[in-house]
């Protein structure tokens, strides 16, 4: 809607199937697409850490969760590589992602925009162009 706020979205898979997903409108107006992605990456990081703890309850020792983000600048922000002037307005709560990376709880990796499976949680996507694929290739579901 036209209030200039972005939507955050993520999806986590364990094995072959999605287990956790979310679509949430951001509470603030981001000043750049990188900032919007950075906020989304933060939301995903919170969930990743929680999921890791649940898996530990199940007796699984988990390695760092990889979060695929399609915005290079957002990743640089998370790795604290960006000139301070561009990011200093971002509320401190969003920076806990840096700590999570340092503590090796999550790692961010770049992915191509077209490969971003979490896009279905942030926008209306068109149908798969290839007519061979009857079903939208972006869906995380399959038949029985």
């Amino acid at each position, binding site marked *: *809607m*036209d209030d200039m706020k972005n*939507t955050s*979205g993520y*999806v986590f898979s*364990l*094995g*072959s*199937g*999605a*287990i*956790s*997903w*979310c*679509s*949430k*409108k951001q509470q603030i107006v981001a000043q750049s697409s990188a900032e919007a992605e950075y906020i989304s990456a933060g939301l995903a990081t919170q969930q990743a850490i*929680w*999921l890791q*703890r*649940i*898996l530990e*309850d*199940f*007796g*699984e020792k988990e390695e760092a969760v990889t979060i695929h983000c399609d915005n290079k600048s957002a990743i640089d922000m998370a790795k604290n590589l960006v000139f301070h002037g561009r990011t200093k307005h971002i509320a401190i709560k969003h920076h806990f992602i840096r700590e999570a990376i340092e503590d090796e709880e999550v790692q961010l990796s770049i992915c191509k925009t077209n490969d971003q499976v979490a896009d*279905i*949680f*942030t*926008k*209306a*996507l*068109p*149908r*798969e162009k290839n007519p061979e694929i009857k*079903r*939208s290739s972006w*869906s*995380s*579901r*399959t*038949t*029985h």
Partner: protein
Amino acid sequence: MKHNPDGSVQKNKARLVAKGYAQQPGVDYEETFYLVACLDTIRALISLATQKGWKLYQLDVKSTFLNGELKEEVYVQQPEGFEIEGQEEMIYKLKKALYGLKQAPRAWYNNIDNYFIEKGFEKSKNEPTLYVKRQGLVDILIVALYVDDLIFTGNNLKLIEDFRKEMMMRYKMNDLGILHHFFGIEIYQEDDGVFICQKKYAEKILKKFGMFGCNPTNTPLVVNEKLKKEDRGKKVDASNYRSLVGNLFYLTNTIPDIMFASSLLSRFMNDPSHIHLGADKRVLRYIHGTLDYGIKYESKV
């Protein structure tokens, strides 16, 4: 009345219900909130169990909330038509919870929580309705409580069997065997993995909104269509719209594809127009086109 899947009557049920609306906070009850495992946890459990080759089992508690013991003193009048002659003015003091009491769910949770702790389970710090019992170095039994459903799995069949027996002795339970249906979600445990979907529920919703047999679409939303709160469209019944959005949200439990559409459309719940309702119906058409789809957790990755 309880029906069989074919629609015939299975049994007639009657239940004594307390007038919870007459209760006063601080006097008749203190805490009322109830904890529910989030479905992310249940899906993570299903996925993990599938990869490990463990089967998932289910027990459901009969008359769940009658198991809760009350901390507060609560009195009820004699039920109408069942008064004891000559003592019509007398009232009952409750020892255990009744349906309708505000604290009934809470009392049940406290009861089963104590029982699990007594039995050597460890409660998860991250999900208060998740319990894990370990035996030796490798054996593990995981139990997730979902109101009156218990979902459990683990790597030791004897642990699982003993747990089932103990639970059935302690509470009145239905042994549902292998987990195949819970909270409106269908679960198919097969050799190559586990498949979950909400086909039956989705069909019910399509029928409820007169969309069963409609033309399916390939996407839940029209690309580039801008929906606005004020669109000058003819207003539609808000409670019907809310109910539809609520049903869509429920379907997101196994249909992530409609998550964005559902949260977008929920923003118009206060004052929906026929344009918003049209967008809702398109989501239903998408659901219709993908009724056979669900999430598959494969056993070999």
